[in-house]
């Protein structure tokens, strides 16, 4: 474009003006084009960060992340991996929602399909905690999630099937598989290790003591969070097979898929609408500090789980865990010392039973924790209560074990609670494995640097068991050690890849489902898990709720992998992303828009 500026020496004012006008007229068409081009934002490339735990804390997570990163890179997506210590990772991901992609283990099994409700319902997408960490919102799914709460029988089965099929299509998270957890356990002091940690360490009560001099059960773990925090409401500190289960009783306990009355003796439906239930507590229940556990404590627990400020703040402050279960309860009141009346929201009896498995909290301890917390590691812009930031050391529960001592990042010692109903009652109505109470006087959880040293301690008779799973490379070490058995346990705590659907381009279900096609569960099972995993696509795999079309098979079309033999075919991957509207730049990098 030629442009002539006015004011040049020796140019008359008139000719300058004429030139300027002419120049402007000549460029006006061009300017429109410039504006259209320059006004557009430069297309930026897609980059994802995968957050997960380091090798010392999880034998598989980083390896999964590395494999994912390789697959995503092959499709032109820049990917980086950030190993973060467990406590910080869960704080970032669950409380502050700072993540793109998250690789981890789900904190516990899906005991009931209603576990989908807190995980995926839109109303929880803005809350902090274990509820809907993906920020997923979908009205259609919300409707299905609400329906399955009300429905029973075949109707519910159908709805749950639809939810699972939806999940595979829209992918707020991807189930990778259920690990076969490898543990080293000494057999000279205690036996019967099968199933003692999964789903809950309460199953440790079923151990057999071989050596009468073995009074202390010594477990090792590379996860030091229990030595810093024993607050059962704290999502960032609680993982699968959580130790606080031993400190806090629940109204009922699920043992080998059957729900047994635990702190309750029985419950009766009152035939009212909406659903109402009367729960009778055992006689003579006590807290670890000697106070009596009454129906008032139970009613208090349900009120606290709904709003940890108990209405004292202008907005309710819900817990980071148990949201699905506490949302079922409409009201809770103590009728007398041992009877609690629970009124439910619109749901079936089957679903309502889920509320029995929340930890019972003592009113005299927690009623002082309902004030607004002033100092916390959590984003201080958010109103939160002391109940959600306290480390809860020393904990006062009513469970079969009570707190003895803790040394941060070293050891946690619990001891048998002699006033527990398992020790004091003759007839408990519980399976014989549990009814005898703990077969040990003390329980010690010892922190170690990594799984290799955990196995080393067990092999040298300085510990009885590795509480968390160890890597498959240690199986031969375990096999060689004397008096040590190799225990394999299919965990209900599945490995998954979570997407933060609040962040573009992960907001787009088509993007996520194409991303899902870059994941080969079969290859992961071999290269990462060394075969110690049952690959799966639904959290309900291994239960009767799983429809046959979602069973995992290498050839299953729902998990169609964009490649062969664990290698992504870049050409096919690009074609798939282009088919859902995405474009690539000259360097074959995927563009955001």
């Amino acid at each position, binding site marked *: 474009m030629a442009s002539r500026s006015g004011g040049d020496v020796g140019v008359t004012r008139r000719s300058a003006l004429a030139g300027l006008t002419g120049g402007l007229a000549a460029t006006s068409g061009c300017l429109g084009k410039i504006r259209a081009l320059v006004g557009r934002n430069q297309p930026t490339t897609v980059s994802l960060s995968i957050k997960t735990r380091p090798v*010392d804390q999880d034998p598989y997570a980083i390896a999964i992340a*590395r494999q994912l990163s390789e697959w995503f890179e092959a499709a032109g997506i820049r990917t980086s991996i*950030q190993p973060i210590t467990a406590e910080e990772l869960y704080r970032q991901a669950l409380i502050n929602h700072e993540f793109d992609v998250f690789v981890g283990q789900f904190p516990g099994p899906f005991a009931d399909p209603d576990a989908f409700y807190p995980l995926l319902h839109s109303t929880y997408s803005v809350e902090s905690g274990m509820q809907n960490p993906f920020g997923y919102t979908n009205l259609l799914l919300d409707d299905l999630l609400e329906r399955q709460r009300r429905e029973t029988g075949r109707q519910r089965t159908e709805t749950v099937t639809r939810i699972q099929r939806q999940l595979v299509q829209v992918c707020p998270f991807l189930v990778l598989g259920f690990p076969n957890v490898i543990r080293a356990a000494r057999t000279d002091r205690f036996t019967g290790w099968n199933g003692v940690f999964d789903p809950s360490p309460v199953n440790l009560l079923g151990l057999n003591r071989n050596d009468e001099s073995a009074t202390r059960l010594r477990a090792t773990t590379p996860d030091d969070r229990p030595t810093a925090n024993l607050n059962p409401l704290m999502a960032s500190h609680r993982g699968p097979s959580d130790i606080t289960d031993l400190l806090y009783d629940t109204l009922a306990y699920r043992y080998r898929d059957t729900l047994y009355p635990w702190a309750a003796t029985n419950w009766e439906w009152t035939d009212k609408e909406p659903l109402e239930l009367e729960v009778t507590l055992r006689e003579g229940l006590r807290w670890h500090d000697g106070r009596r556990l009454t129906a008032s404590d139970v009613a208090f627990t349900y009120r606290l789980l709904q709003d940890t400020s108990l209405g004292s703040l202008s907005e309710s402050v819900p817990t980071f865990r148990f949201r699905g279960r506490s949302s079922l309860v409409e009201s809770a009141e103590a009728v007398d010392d041992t009877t609690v009346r629970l009124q439910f929201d619109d749901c079936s009896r089957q679903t309502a039973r889920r509320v029995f498995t929340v930890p019972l909290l003592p009113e005299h301890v927690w009623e002082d924790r309902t004030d607004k917390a002033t100092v916390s590691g959590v984003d201080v812009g958010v109103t939160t209560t002391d109940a959600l930031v306290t480390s809860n050391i020393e904990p006062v529960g009513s469970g079969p074990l009570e707190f003895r001592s803790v040394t941060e990042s070293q050891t946690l010692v619990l001891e048998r609670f002699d006033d527990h109903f398992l020790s004091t009652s003759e007839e408990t109505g519980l399976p014989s494995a549990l009814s005898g109470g703990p077969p040990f006087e003390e329980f010690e959880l010892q922190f*170690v640097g990594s799984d290799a*040293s955990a196995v*080393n301690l067990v092999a040298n008779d300085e510990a009885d068991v590795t509480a968390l799973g160890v890597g498959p490379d240690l199986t031969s070490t375990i096999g060689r050690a004397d008096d040590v058995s190799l225990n394999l346990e299919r965990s209900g705590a599945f490995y998954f890849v979570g997407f933060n659907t609040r962040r573009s381009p992960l907001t787009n279900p088509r993007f996520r489902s194409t991303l899902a096609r870059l994941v080969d569960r079969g290859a992961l099972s071999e290269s990462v898990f060394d075969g110690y995993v049952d690959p799966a696509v639904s959290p309900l795999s291994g239960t009767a709720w799983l429809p046959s079309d979602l069973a995992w098979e290498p050839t299953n079309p729902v998990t169609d992998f964009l490649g062969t033999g664990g290698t992504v075919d870049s050409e096919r991957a690009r074609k798939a992303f282009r088919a859902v509207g995405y474009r690539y730049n000259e360097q074959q990098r995927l563009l955001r828009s």
Partner: protein
Amino acid sequence: MGIVAVFLEVVAVLALMLTVSLSVVVGPERLRASLTELPERLRMAARPIGLLVVVLAINSRVRTTGVDLSWLIGFNITRLLFSIEGTVVATLQSAVPGWLTLYFGYVYVYGYAFLLVFPLLAGLVAAERRYLRHTAFAYIINYTIGMCCYLLFVSYGPRNYGIVEPLLFDTLPRFQLLTSEVNANTNVFPSLHTSLSMTVALLAIRDHETFPKWTPVAVFLAVSIVLSTMILGIHWATDVVAGTVLALFSVWVVSSPRVASLYGRCTSLYGRCTSLYGRWRGG
């Protein structure tokens, strides 16, 4: 084997190594000759050694409890380190034959402790009085700067990033009890194993005349230790480079006449101030 047993094992091996090396490197005659001067030597060593002990105490506190703080205020640089160097450490590890792993494991633990303690003991009998003082101050510089970096940077080593085998803890798992006791697994940048070993080697070269037999031992051990940090999957190559820079810096500081004169001027200024203050109080 518990932590106490592992600790005793290290102390016993270290004592043996020190006895042998002192009698060979320093020689029985010099040892005997220095016995008469020992009380005075110890008195002179008290200040630098005392300062070193204080720094070490602060350091050990920061390394374990400072971890929570550094997660709050520090920069998480694991990703950055990986993007700088990629799989260098993995390549190095795969190039080293398996039977050497045990050697590097022992060098990492015993060799390192020996390399650090020897100059302090030898310094007590050295004719040059600066030997011990310089060594102690160089250590102090290393630990202080290292400590600040550990607070500022959070990073996992290559073994925790899953790109290498965690060889040390696979072959000698008992040592992890010890290392996790003295350090957190997020304190990798810079490598203090590298910086302190290189410091000792550099000082040994500088003061070659004092203990001629020590120089080759120190250099050989230092190189082995530097390699071991990477081969065992504990440190990134970048940590090693940063550690070497730190070593060069600390040796430059203790050797530089300019720093010495600055220090001298500061202490004389301090002396003058205190005497002025004394006179003012007395006057």
